[in-house]
């Protein structure tokens, strides 16, 4: 089996997957609290290859792409006039929210009060405090510099912030992440910054550079395929001549 064509196929398909990844980052360049994906290319090897002398070895035959863990890339902080908006100063810190599937983590601090006085995230999931969901707020609710939610007439409730530096995070959509099974969070390292919102961690310049690189890569792979095809054709012609 000619390994060069398989390698060409693997490279083109890795380039396409990487472009999907870049495309996702670029589409989310204005999504608050978005974390870009760390692209991961890995070379792959063939199954056992038997040499003429009977020795066996594994030959490299291509490359594969997989989206790696979310990059700890902070978005720019933007001032917000909303007293319920907050950002986090440490790159590894996350707010904790309660979803129907369990606890999830987010960098998107665009919180609000829902109709029943709970503090919820932009998707309506209750925001967790250190003693469970934050409730009991009416009008006049605000998040203070000490990272606690307070409203007139109720005691302040501290927001639960977890540090997930170095953990395996799973993307759940809507800027939410969950921890891989068996992993646990660490206590917060930084502070809650009220009156600010974190923008997207995706970077247009980086994304555009990736697009150009991937496009050129695919082009050179196509040239390699053509060269391989040309040499195969030359071989066939030579065989015809010798007959």
């Amino acid at each position, binding site marked *: 089996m000619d390994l060069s064509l398989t390698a060409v196929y693997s490279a083109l398909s890795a380039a396409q997957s990487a472009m999907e990844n870049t495309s996702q980052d670029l589409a989310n360049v204005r999504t608050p609290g978005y974390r870009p994906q760390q692209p991961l290319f890995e070379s792959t090897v063939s199954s056992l290859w038997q040499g003429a002398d009977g020795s066996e070895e594994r030959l490299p035959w291509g490359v594969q792409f997989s989206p790696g863990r979310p990059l700890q890339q902070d978005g720019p902080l933007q001032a917000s006039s909303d007293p319920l908006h907050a950002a986090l100063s440490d790159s590894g810190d996350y707010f904790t929210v309660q979803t129907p599937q369990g606890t999830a983590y987010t960098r998107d601090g665009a919180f609000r009060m829902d109709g029943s006085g709970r503090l919820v995230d932009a998707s309506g999931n209750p925001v967790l405090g250190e003693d469970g969901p934050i409730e009991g707020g009416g009008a006049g609710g605000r998040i203070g510099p000490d990272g606690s939610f307070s409203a007139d*007439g109720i005691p302040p409730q501290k927001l639960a912030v977890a540090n997930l530096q170095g953990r395996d995070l*799973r993307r759940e959509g809507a800027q939410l992440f969950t921890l891989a099974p068996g992993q646990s969070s660490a206590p917060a390292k930084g502070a809650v910054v009220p009156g600010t919102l974190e923008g997207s961690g995706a970077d247009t310049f980086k994304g555009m550079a990736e697009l150009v690189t991937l496009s050129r890569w695919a082009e050179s792979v196509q040239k390699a395929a053509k060269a391989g095809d040309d040499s195969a054709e030359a071989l066939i012609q030579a065989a015809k001549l010798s007959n």
Partner: protein
Amino acid sequence: MFKALEIAASGMASEQVAMNTVANNMANTNTVGFKSSQVRFEELLSSQESDGTLSATGVGVAGTQRDLSQGALTATGQTWDLAISGSGYFPVIDANGREAYTRAGSFHVDSEGHIVNPNGLALAAGITVPTGAQNVQVGQDGTVQALLPGNSQSVVLGKIDLVGFADEQGLTDRGNGLFDQNDASGPPLRQGAASNALQLGSIQQGALEGSNVNMVQEMVDMINTQRAYETGAKVITAADEMLGYANSLRR
């Protein structure tokens, strides 16, 4: 399946919604009581792949968020121009007899003596202003007093009660500066309502609350939106090229 094209298209569609919102804000820079809106983007992932992971499908618009900050008050000197300084809404009764809520306080008195907004919807307070009423005073707490013919002292005609909501963002915008309550916003709350330490604003007679649209911010948003849209178009070109290379493998 190569999804880069669809992902880029989702970004462009979302930016189009954002541009509509910017345009609407810009068009309402002079609308009384108008609150500017901003689109909220949300990362989209597909349903589960076979290996349990979720794959990227682009971006969507999760909704719009109103900027609830106070608009500038402008003195007009008109008796029935009322501005709210602080939070709260005027409850008015719509054509179907239901309550709607507005911050646009340019009222006038109709032929039947009702205090109505420019669309003819009467204040829910149900105050009737008798003909010949003079020297009308609307207090900061909403108390309406007037000097009636034949009387030497002002009489209280009624009180305009402002209402607030647990989640103002949840109110449904029905146009004409009117909002509807719903499950998300919670019911209308009056000042001093039990269990809610609600701080409603005060009423300023002879003034109107201007739009809170910040033109400079809108221009910046417009540029950002247009450039993000352009980025999507570039991704589509790059994805097209990529497919071209795949096609040209077979000569």
